[in-house]
Structures are given as structure tokens and as C-alpha cells.
């Protein structure tokens, strides 16, 4: 709480004037509280957007005067500026060097993300940004099913992976001919290869240095693709016999059955990536899920949202559960949970985590979206909560300790170059900062 100055004033009128000025100052001040001004450790503050107010707002205003609409994530560029995914405004915006909001990609109208001037392209729900070794912005244009490169000097966008068709295809071929289905995030490894979280395809894919694309996580040899159907029926002796047929040529009565489902599930811990399965949402109502990050040793962390876990795949493609727990096979009735703070991360419970961020010291932050909080796994493997009250959605003002401030479905988490934690508090329409 701000305390009014208590200096002795001799005359009533001057006292009145001072008080009036003080009141006006307090009433009009935009920056909420001293704990934010002082960047007190552990305090949560608003970084960008207007708490509880969704919208487009204006460019050219300060971050706290602007509006965002279901912000998804944020990434700091090599220029030190934050680039944000303003999801329902279908734009990428940044806080520029002058400290003002500026749109850098997208008109806001729906479209197929055509190549050309970035400010004239039309996106549909972009979800992630990373930066290439050469400093280009790499955009996961989620619902466009493309990954595109933006040269920030020339302001041009060019798609380099994904045809835009929402399906699975192209492994072994050039990246631009690959077919993706809701690429939710893409990160570079230390060699400069790009790993793409191909959400609805339930796969991690990698663009090699020769520009070919391959699957490195999911879905195992059992999987049959969607052009085929698998039909199981009892034979004469009552044993179940399964047959895989081309869907188009399924005139054989034994081949009439349900079309194959997505290669989702839970499998593969202890094995290698191509035998593993994840569950990241697909279908008409799917929101963004399954974002990834990578650590200094090239281990990939995957928010395996539907399995309520964070999976880890090392440089040599060994898969394990890094955080969260649940049934040994995918169970649609298991809705995750909140448990385990203070203990080992892979014994804890998460609920529908949507993003993960690795700090320089190896600490991993998890957007525990379904629990409305941010979890932290320190290098010793112990998990705790750093922001939000797990299990309670809400809309609390800035200026209090982060772990006592409610969030509402935070979809994104990032660590800034300043070492502080940035949170996309998606349904509160703001980015938050937690001073660490």
C-alpha cells in the first residue's frame, strides 16, 4: 500500500492543494504498486496488455495501455525485444525499442499466410516464435499449418515448411513440401536443425541441415496412416484378427470399419523417440498444445498436454517423463491433477500443460495450464509452484507475491534475457512478469 506523505503543512490551502495533487496522482497512476516499481523478487506484475480486457487496442501505446486477445506466448529476440503471439488478433506484435507496442506480422484478417510483406500477410492463430541462428524470426503459423521465416530487416515473410494442407506427409523430402497439421512450436538445436512440434499429427519432426524433414518422436511401427483402415473381427475360432486395408479400396467386407484414429497415446518412456507416443489435442475444438523447448545439451522438452506430463527426449533420442505422472497407457478419463510440490517432478501431477521453458541454469518452467499455475523444476529435479494458485482460476491484480496471485489458463511461459519469468496469462489477456 502506498502511504501518503505526512509532511507538516502550515496553511490549510497549501495542504489542500497537496492532497488534491496527491489524490489525482494516486487515482490516475497506471503502474499499480510499489512492489512492481521496485521489482521485488517473487512479485508478479503486468508486463503487457490490460488485465481482464481483451481486444485489439492500438499500436504506438505503452505495453500496459495496449490490449491483447488470448495471448499465447512470448519470445525475446536477439534484439532484446519481446515478440508476442497475439492469438485471437492473428498478429505478432512486439514492444519496440521505444517501448511501444508495434505489430510486426499480420493484418488480423484470416488467410493462408501468403508470402510477402509481413505486415500484409494474413495469419490464422499463430502460436510460437523462435529465432534462427542468423537472427530471422521463425513463426509457427499454427492454424495455417506452416512454419515461416520473417526477415525483420526487410519485413518479409516466407514459408519454408508446410504446404498449408492439414495432414501428415512429406517425411524424407524437402521441408517446403512437408504436410503439417497444426505446428504449434519450433525450436533450433545447437547444430541449427529445426525441431517442429506437429501437434495434430502427434509427432516431433526435424528439418535436417540438408533441408529434408523426418519424424523423430512418434508414433511407432504399429501406426497406420489415415489413408488406411484397420479392421479387427473374430475369426472362426473366436480369435481377434486384424487387417489393414487401403480406405479407398475397402470393398472387402472385412475392411469396413472405423477409420484409423490419430497416432496419439502414451508410450515409449525408456525407448527412443520414433517408438514413443504423445497425446496432443486434435479435432474441431483443439486449442494449442504440445509446445517445446530445448536445453543446452539439446534435450527437447515437450508439453505432452493430453498425457499431463512433460516428456524429455535427449540428444540421442532417449525418451522419458520429466515431470508429471499418470496411467501407464493413455486414459481419456484421466484429467491430470495437482500434486507433488516439494518432491521429484516425475512423481508430481500436472493438468494439461501447454508450454515449457528452460532457463540457462537448467531450471524448467512449466505452464501448467489446466491448473492455472506455473510450476518449476529445479536442476535437482524437485518441483514447486512459482506463480498462480494451482487449481484455482482467477483474475488477481499485480503487485502481490506470484504464488498468491490467481491466473486463468496460462498457455505460455518464457524466461527473459533478464532471467525473469514471463507468463502468457491467456484468459486474463495479459502477459505477466515474475521477478526472480
Amino acid at each position, binding site marked *: 500500500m502506498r502511504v501518503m506523505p505526512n509532511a507538516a503543512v502550515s496553511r490549510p490551502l497549501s495542504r489542500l492543494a497537496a492532497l488534491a495533487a496527491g*489524490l*489525482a496522482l*494516486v487515482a*490516475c497512476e497506471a503502474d499499480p504498486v510499489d512492489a512492481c516499481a521496485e521489482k521485488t523478487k517473487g512479485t508478479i506484475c503486468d508486463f503487457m496488455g490490460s488485465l481482464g480486457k481483451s481486444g*485489439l487496442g492500438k499500436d504506438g501505446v505503452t505495453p500496459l495501455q495496449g*490490449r491483447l486477445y488470448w495471448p499465447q506466448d512470448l519470445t525475446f529476440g536477439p534484439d532484446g525485444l519481446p515478440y508476442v503471439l497475439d492469438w485471437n488478433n492473428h498478429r505478432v506484435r512486439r514492444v519496440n525499442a521505444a517501448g511501444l507496442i508495434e505489430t510486426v506480422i499480420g493484418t488480423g484478417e484470416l488467410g*493462408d499466410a501468403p508470402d510477402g510483406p509481413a505486415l500484409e500477410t494474413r495469419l490464422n492463430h499463430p502460436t510460437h516464435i523462435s529465432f534462427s541462428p542468423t537472427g530471422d524470426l521463425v513463426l509457427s503459423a499454427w492454424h495455417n499449418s506452416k512454419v515461416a521465416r520473417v526477415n525483420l530487416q526487410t519485413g518479409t515473410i516466407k514459408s519454408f515448411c508446410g504446404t498449408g494442407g492439414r495432414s501428415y506427409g512429406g517425411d524424407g523430402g524437402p521441408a517446403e513440401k512437408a504436410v503439417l497439421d497444426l505446428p504449434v512450436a519450433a525450436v533450433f538445436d545447437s547444430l541449427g536443425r529445426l525441431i517442429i512440434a506437429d501437434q495434430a499429427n502427434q509427432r516431433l519432426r526435424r528439418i535436417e541441415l540438408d533441408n529434408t524433414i523426418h519424424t523423430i518422436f512418434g508414433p511407432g511401427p504399429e501406426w497406420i496412416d489415415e489413408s488406411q483402415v484397420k479392421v479387427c473381427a473374430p475369426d472362426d475360432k473366436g480369435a481377434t484378427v486384424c487387417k489393414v486395408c487401403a480406405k479407398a479400396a475397402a470393398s472387402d467386407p472385412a475392411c469396413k470399419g472405423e477409420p484409423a484414429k490419430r497416432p496419439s497415446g502414451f508410450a515409449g518412456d525408456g525407448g527412443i523417440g520414433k517408438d514413443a507416443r504423445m497425446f496432443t489435442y486434435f479435432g474441431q475444438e483443439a486449442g494449442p498444445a504440445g509446445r517445446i523447448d530445448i536445453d543446452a545439451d539439446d534435450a527437447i522438452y515437450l508439453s505432452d498436454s493430453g498425457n499431463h506430463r512433460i516428456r524429455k527426449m535427449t540428444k540421442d533420442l532417449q525418451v522419458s517423463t520429466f515431470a508429471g505422472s499418470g496411467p501407464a497407457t493413455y486414459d481419456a478419463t484421466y484429467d491430470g491433477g495437482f500434486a507433488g510440490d516439494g518432491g521429484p517432478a516425475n512423481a508430481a501431477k500436472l493438468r494439461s500443460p501447454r508450454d515449457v521453458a528452460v532457463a540457462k541454469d537448467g531450471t524448467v518452467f512449466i505452464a501448467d495450464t489446466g491448473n492455472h499455475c506455473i510450476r518449476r523444476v529445479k536442476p535437482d529435479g524437485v518441483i514447486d509452484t512459482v506463480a498462480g494458485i494451482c487449481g484455482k482460476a482467477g483474475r488477481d491484480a499485480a503487485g502481490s507475491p506470484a504464488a498468491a496471485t490467481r491466473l486463468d489458463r496460462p498457455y505460455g511461459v518464457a524466461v527473459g534475457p533478464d532471467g525473469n519469468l514471463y507468463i502468457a496469462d491467456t484468459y486474463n489477456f495479459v502477459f505477466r512478469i515474475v521477478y526472480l
Partner: protein
Amino acid sequence: MRGHKTTQQRTASKGLPARWWAATLAALAAAALAACDTETPATPPRPCEGADGTICTVIGNGEAGFDGDGNPLLESNLYWPIDVAVHPDGRTWVIDWNNHRVREAQGDKLQTVVGSDTLGDGPDDHSDLTPAGAVGTLVNLNHPTQLVPMDDGSLLLVAWHNHKLRKYDPLTGRVHVVVGGGAGYAGDGGAAKGAQLDQPQAVAKDGKGGLYILDQRNQVVRHIDQDGVIHTVAGTVKGDGFAGDGLKPLEAKFSFPKGSNPPPGGWVAVDAKGRVYISDTLNHRIRRVDLAAQTVETIAGTGEAGYGGDGGKGPEAKLNNPRKITFGPDGRLYIGDEKNNRIRALDVDTLTITTVAGDGKATFAGDFGPAAKASLWRPIGVSFNVKGEMLIVDTYNHRIRRVIGTIGGK
């Protein structure tokens, strides 16, 4: 958020009673708060009154966003509204496109009646798939495009990016799916409920208990007859282009926005004789289909995007991205001529076309003046209230505007 910052002052000064200080400080505090609280209007809004032909804003403060429900109509945020619907009893709804909501003007307040705070497809429990349906505010929507009052008192909601038609019952507040599942083209010859649509953008009643559907990404018009059976009646499936004037309706080609992530486009209307009108958005034309005679013709638009031809014949006039079409009480066809920033009116007998609102400038201007001199910014929708007054969905101004005065008989 401001309450916790005010500091109570109990200091009394010599010569003046404590309550004088208290009252003065309270007044000053109130004044200070009011001075910087830009969302509190100093004066009540000017009533929408004036001579016939005067335009004024009736919903929306111009800010793109969602600032909660229950705000006064003129202080409410909208985000790219696309349509406005008026029930015969006078109730009015806005299709608040980029807020993914249907909002109702309840007295002086705006309230969401369908749609939640989450983008999606129906309620989590799928209880909207069968009657009586789900509570409207629990139904997640994805870019609804139109709401049409039906003869039974319900409203048909075109759930564009959900690839569905939903029914909203304003008495119960519940919503259920009546047509459509996932995106596709299927079901012709069968019951409409199981058919697949691909981003249906608009519907129009056929006057006989059936319905026409502008099935955007399938590039066709489909018809549900009074028995509930669906058929394709005009256009070439997935075959966008321009063809068919002088040919049969199923040989025609239209051009609605396509691709994987198109913006909405196309609209459909029906006249008193049962003829079908199609806003052929990317052909910049209005087409007319007579299904009984099996003919197709262009009744407005040369095909070239542009503005011109007022006072002359429709086919010699230019349109630019025509969107909603609807018949006015005078029998003329009104056109949301979006990228001309104007509302046009077309006499479908003489084919004379004129501009009825908008000066072409893409900005917000002209309230309380004549509609033709006001500025609209990409107006997509146009409707009429029970008094026969025109309501303009001024999409990029995030406002609904009304033109005073009944549009008379022709």
C-alpha cells in the same frame, strides 16, 4: 483496483471542522477519479433522433475487444461484428464475429446469449448435439456469421467455422445443432442433420419451410426442403470461378473465399417469388438463380472490383467485395458493399442501383448527419428493424449504426 490506494485522512485543521475536510477531500477524490477515468461519460449519450435519413451509432464504442457483458450499448466493445438480427418482437442481436459470441441488446445493456470465453465447438459435454441442447453461454463458438429469426420463434445460428447450423431458443436460452458435423461435403439426398458443410456463411428461408445455405468452401448453394432433405442446387462443388450466366444453376460457378483459412464471404437471400440471390463476393457480382426456370444471371456488378454505376443498371455498376444481401421493406435488395465502404440498394425488377449509406471513406464519421454523407468502414451487414429502419453493421468501426426513418414502399 483503485480502492486500496486511497488513503483516509483524518487530519483536521484549525478553524475548520473535521467534516468540512472530510467532505472536501471526498469531493476532490471523486473529481480526481472522474478526471482520469475515461470510461465514465461525463454526459448521457445523445439520443438517436433526427430527420429521416439521419445516421447514428446504436451499439458499440468503437473499441475492438471484449470488455465484459452488461455494459451500456454505447459503451460496449464489439470486435468485427458481421451481422445484426431483429426478431419480429423487436429483440435485437449482434453477431460479434471476432469475439465468437452472439450478443443481445437487453434494454440499454449488451449481453452474451450464445458463446463463452473460450474459442471452440460446443460445450465440453456435447450436450448441444441433441435437443433441448446446452445453455447458450456454455457453448463455445468459432466465428459465427449470421443469426436468422425463424417462423417458430427460434433463431438459426450460422456457426461458420464450426461447419454447423445451430438453433437458439430465446425462451430457454438453449442451443442445439441442427445441421452439420465436421468440415466436408456430404449428405446430399439424405437428412440434413447428418450432412457435412464446409464453412457455411449464410442461410435464407425459402418461404416454404425450407432453407438455402451458402456453403462457402464448397462453393455451392444447398437447399434443405421442408422434409429436411438436403441437396445442392447451384454452383460447382469446390469449383470456384465465374460461369453459368445463361446456363443451368448446377453448371454455374461462384467465387467465395477459399483456401485453408479463408475469411468469410458470400451470402444468400430469397425474394417473394422464391428466386435465390447470391452475393458472389470475389466475382464482385450479385447473381440471381431461378430454380424453377433453371436460369442464372448477373443482376449487379461488372466483375471488376470498383465503385460506380449509381443511378444506372446493376450489371453495368461496380461492386467491391459484396457481402450481406437482404431485402428491405421496400422490396429492394440491400448490399453490404464492403470494400466500397458503402451500402447499396438494387431494385431487382428495374435493376436500378444506388448508394444509400456511406461516402466511401474508410473511417468513422458522420453520426447525426445524413447517412449518405457518413463514413462507414467495411460494412459487411445490413438489416432492418421492426420499424423498417436500416441497421448497418459497420464492421471495421466495431459499431452498429441505425438510419432513422422507415424505408418506404417503392
